């Protein structure tokens, strides 16, 4: 069995550590690109959402590299993601490729089924061993997120433009050559040290912008035209509260233990959205409120066309904008979105935030900001 997995930002590193530790064979599909999307579009109906199209693209590209089993995560919320596994299976049949799907979730059949699925990947039924591997994969996820966080912070205040990305790109190149969680962790540590040595200008007071929205579009650089990098190079400090490690810990491990769950965003969203509607809608609403309370300059809301939960939160955001006086911009991505158009909107938004901050400094808030 040769495994593969779809791309979502840096999750391939987590999957790599997971499969390396089990000694499984796998291929990493090429990072998402126009080519991936093109392949996905060829086989998908127009109404499918962008993440699904890219997943299909990943699947086909991995198949061409020799993979025969794909690992994905699932769920059973009202969002479409929960049914990706089934749909990918069907899609593989339609395309005429042999691809087995293993969905890592707690299925209807119960925990036993999940255990047997994991056993298929691990090749061992030693519970201790499996638990150790899962734990170290989780640790990698946490480390990766803190690394991304560090890169975002340094990028906004770096003295020489591009110095952070030089290191960060080196990391993405080197990571494919190391094996196993221990080595991956070591590499991450090295990169952290290198990033900490980047020459920064601490006198700058960068604008602070929060990125909220659908998890795939906010995390996957291809889906958001590397918005974090784009903003960082404009000298903007970016925060993204929804992370892969947060998702793994909250949604997969702590789901059954509500008292351990991080529910700050739920509290903050209570006034606007008291119940969950699926996906990350409650995160979007809650984190926008939290960003406003923490004195952020603005919020960018991203989601792929047709994402049902985010449409609900989009309708609520203007009220938050009004209540807290924080500008929020919604950008919707689909396969027709051009990078230049996207960059123009982001730049205009940042200009507005800058102007707005200047006016506030002079204590004469005359700027109109729209919705």
């Amino acid at each position, binding site marked *: 069995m040769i495994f593969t997995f779809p791309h979502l930002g840096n999750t391939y590193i987590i999957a790599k550590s997971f499969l390396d530790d089990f000694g499984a064979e796998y291929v990493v599909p090429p990072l998402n690109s126009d080519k991936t999307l093109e392949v996905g579009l060829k086989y998908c*109906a127009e*109404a*499918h*959402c962008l993440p699904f199209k890219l997943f299909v693209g990943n699947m086909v590209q991995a198949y061409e590299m020799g993979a025969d089993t794909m690992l994905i995560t699932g769920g*059973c*919320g*009202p*969002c*479409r993601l*929960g*049914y990706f*596994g*089934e*749909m990918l*299976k*069907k899609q593989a049949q339609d395309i005429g490729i042999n691809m087995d799907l293993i*969905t890592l979730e707690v*299925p*209807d059949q119960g925990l036993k089924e999940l255990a047997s699925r994991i056993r298929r990947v691990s090749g061992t039924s030693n519970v201790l061993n499996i638990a150790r591997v899962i734990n170290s994969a989780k640790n990698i996820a946490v480390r990766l997120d803190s690394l991304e966080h560090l890169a975002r912070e340094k990028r906004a205040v770096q003295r020489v433009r591009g110095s952070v990305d030089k290191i960060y790109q080196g990391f993405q190149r080197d990571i494919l050559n190391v094996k196993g969680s221990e080595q991956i962790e070591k590499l991450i540590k090295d990169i952290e040290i290198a990033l900490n040595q980047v020459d920064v200008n601490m006198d700058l007071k960068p604008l602070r912008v929060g990125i909220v929205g659908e998890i795939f579009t906010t995390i996957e650089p291809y889906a958001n035209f590397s918005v974090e990098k784009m903003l960082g190079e404009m000298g903007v400090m970016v925060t993204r509260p929804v992370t892969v490690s947060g998702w793994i810990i909250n949604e997969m491990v702590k789901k059954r233990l509500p008292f351990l769950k991080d529910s700050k965003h739920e509290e903050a969203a209570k006034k*606007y*959205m*008291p*119940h969950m*509607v*699926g*996906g990350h*809608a409650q995160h979007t609403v809650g984190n926008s409120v939290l960003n406003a309370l923490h004195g952020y300059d603005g919020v960018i809301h991203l989601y792929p*066309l*047709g*994402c*049902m*939960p985010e*449409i*609900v*939160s*989009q*309708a*609520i955001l*203007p*009220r938050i904008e009004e209540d807290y006086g924080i500008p929020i911009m919604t950008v*919707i991505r689909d396969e027709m979105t051009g990078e230049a158009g996207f960059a123009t909107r982001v730049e205009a938004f940042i200009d507005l935030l800058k102007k707005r901050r200047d006016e506030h400094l002079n204590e004469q808030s005359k700027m109109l900001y729209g919705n």
Partner: protein
Amino acid sequence: MKRVGIPKGLYYYKYSTLWEAFFRNLDADVIVSDTTNKKILTNGSNTCVSEACIPIKAYFGHVMELIGKVDYIFMPRFTSVAKKQYICPEVCGVTDMIRNSVKELPKIIDTEINLRESPKNSWHAALYTGEFLTGDRKKISSAYKEALNEYKSKRRALKFADTEFGATPEKNKLTIAIIGHSYTVYDTFLNMELTKKLNKYGADVVTLDMLDYLVSKDSCKELDKQFFWDYGTRAYGGAVQLIKSGRIDGILALTSFGCGVDSFVDELVENKIRKESDIPFMKLVLDEHSAEAGFLTRLEAFIDMIVRRRDNDFYISTSGKHLYNC
């Protein structure tokens, strides 16, 4: 007497009897908004975010239609209507969407309807709703029971129609099934009177509500993973039943643009129908730009195709010959 407004959209088309009877039994003045019309839809789409689907926009319009005319608006928050099932996220969140985008709303009765864990929650929902109008629990209980009985008998009547349909097949009569959410299939403005049009062509119409839900649920067991959308179970199971019945001449899938649930469900349904039967299948997509002429053309072509195929079977003329044996 307190005036309770019910927007005529979304799940009204499923639970109208239950809701109206319940409020009437509680001595409330029930005001239902008009059937969707152009004004309602325009009002709705001007207020709603443009990305939402057309039934949601119409629902916005219905709520706005009721403002000023009522003391309460009954806008239940649907999470789930069956065990282990969910409703589409947009329908889940429509109450929040409206509350945060329409100003000066009357008091909202925002009962949460969540039967995912236990069907008993339906009584809790009734209690919560009733307490807006009266403090008398006994009254609420009897009002709920009566309304439920009325609703059940009406549903039974609908089921009865199922055993009737196509029982005595007439030569020229067709039976067309419509697969779609109740709020597009029964909203005559949104679907441009699809049922009436089909009747005019001499076709009987079967909708998903005429089919047995429990059989549908059972039919879905053939899937590796069960749908977590109530509609998915009904549509897929319904398609299986329709194929098995052997009395269906054509299947129409009615969906609204941007419907995420349909994007997956309809594809599986279409796959199933095409693989396991030769029933003609067509997908109709609705949005606020749908033009009636285009809609009609497609519908006519679909019916023509069915009729011709039935009359001539697979007799296809060779070049230069007439197709019809005239």
